[in-house]
């Protein structure tokens, strides 16, 4: 229904305008309807990293696109906040500064949401309270191993 779409759009838009500056250390992003009819309009993402010009997401860099999508994912999440959130390698294209801000936001949200995240990134590993290691010593067969952060970081995507 038009009403429901309008409400969802506004709520996500509002939340995106909070998460984006947290992840980028500034700047702004918002959603924009591409058509006139609430029943079938498309939705576009416009974003302005700090010091840069506003553009559609498609003109941004690989890492900027990914971080903007993470900001949107967290805005979607807040519509129906679940008790836990699982993230699979969302930090892969991010540089150190962006990973740092991403981890800070996750840590803040972890006061009310339990985060379980898969990562190859050393910085993200150091933010975890606990690390679960998975290996395939026997090919094709997964098993858990104890890990400490130093050892995992050495094996990490680094």
């Amino acid at each position, binding site marked *: 229904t038009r009403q429901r*779409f309008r*409400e*969802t*759009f506004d709520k*996500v838009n509002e939340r995106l305008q909070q998460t984006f500056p947290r992840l980028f250390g500034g700047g702004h992003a918002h*959603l924009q309807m591409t058509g006139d009819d609430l029943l*079938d309009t*498309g*939705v*576009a993402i416009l974003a302005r990293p700090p010091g840069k010009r506003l553009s559609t*997401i498609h003109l941004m860099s690989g890492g900027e696109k*990914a971080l*903007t*999508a993470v900001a*949107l*994912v967290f805005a*979607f*999440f807040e*519509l*129906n906040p*679940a*008790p*836990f*959130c*699982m*993230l*699979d*390698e*969302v930090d892969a294209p991010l540089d150190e500064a962006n990973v740092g801000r991403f981890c800070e936001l*996750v*840590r803040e949200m*972890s*006061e009310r*949401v*339990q*985060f*379980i*995240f*898969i*990562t*190859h990134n050393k910085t993200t*590993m150091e933010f*975890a*309270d*606990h*690390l*679960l*290691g*998975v290996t*395939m010593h*026997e*090919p*094709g*067969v*997964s*098993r*858990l191993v104890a*890990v400490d952060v130093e050892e995992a970081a050495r*094996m*990490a995507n680094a």
Partner: protein
Amino acid sequence: MRLRRIKLAGFKSFVDPTTLHLPSAMVGIVGPNGCGKSNIIDAVRWVMGENSRHLRGDSMEDVIFNGSAGRKPVGQASIELVFDNSDGRAGGQFARFNEIAVRRVVARDGQSKYYLNGSRCRRRDVVDLFLGTGLGPRSYAIIEQGMISRLVEARPEELRVYLEEAA
């Protein structure tokens, strides 16, 4: 409704019975490429009702361990999630329990069986349990590998659908 434990057996590369303990609010899962990390995410989505079509498989059987160089295939896959429900957020008739165990089992004939706290139940009882908690196979509580790229590449018509699904 914290997730305390995930128990896997015969599910994809987790052929041997394995229990993951999730003791805190910031748990990282690490390991080399192809070792099984994303399979854990698949397991959680599957037990909440996801179909294998969305778990990189084509048929229900694709989630059952299908053998490796040194092991034969097995006959069934089982995933159990154990929740701490002391905040009372779970829905349905199990809402009053402090701990809730949700289990799904599938055999080679493709038939799935669901269990709540050890008792056989219907798939819809599991769906009801998660109603209103923000959880479920297609919720934004689980962001699988590749979801970020899909959002980035989405055309406006596709992004609209993602928005509607989030509501």
